[in-house]
């Protein structure tokens, strides 16, 4: 049980680093952005995991007795914000990638560097 709970945090670490790997190791700019979005999603998982409470339910107070436990609403609020921030960054990043394609004719980082060096 203990380990199963920790497993959530491990998956956070694995996702975070897989995304990071895509960002640092891949040449393709869209792939980098996909990696970046995985990187961000991992953080969402971290926050939501810490908000979970055993035997609790979603923090929507409807017809529950006094003893009912509710999961922590604050991480959820923060992650709502973070998700929207994430999609905003993605949209802007994709816009930049499209413009790069228009100006350079490629979206591979090493090829862009080659073109700039000329």
């Amino acid at each position: 049980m203990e380990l199963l709970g920790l497993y959530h945090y491990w998956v956070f670490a694995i996702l975070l680093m897989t995304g990071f790997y895509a960002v640092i190791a891949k040449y393709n700019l869209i792939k980098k952005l996909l990696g970046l979005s995985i990187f961000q999603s991992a953080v969402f998982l971290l926050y939501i995991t810490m908000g979970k409470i055993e035997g609790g339910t979603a923090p929507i107070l409807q017809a529950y007795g006094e003893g009912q436990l509710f999961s922590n609403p604050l991480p959820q609020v923060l992650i709502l914000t973070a998700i929207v921030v994430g999609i905003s960054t993605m949209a802007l990043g994709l816009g930049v990638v499209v413009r790069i394609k228009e100006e350079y004719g490629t979206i591979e980082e090493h090829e862009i560097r080659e073109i700039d060096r000329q």
Partner: protein
Amino acid sequence: MYYVVTIATVLTMALALVRALLGPSIYDRLLAVNMFGTKTVLLLSLIAFLYGRPDFLDLALAYALINFIGVLAVLEFIRQRTARNLARGENEGL
């Protein structure tokens, strides 16, 4: 009983995921994605009842909707690409 059905659904999701990873054609992957989406809808409905929170069925509804739009968007993408390739007189395949 709910558990058995829920487990069956989750397993089916795993199978669909395997198909999505294996491909081989892009349509196989899409088929798997579509199936994955509908299974998620079922899973959410089941879990909503499993936990006694029927008010969360809204989510399942939203999923069904989003899934549909996603698949249509992919199809439109493929259509445009096919049309473009035809117009250029080349056929790269998929």
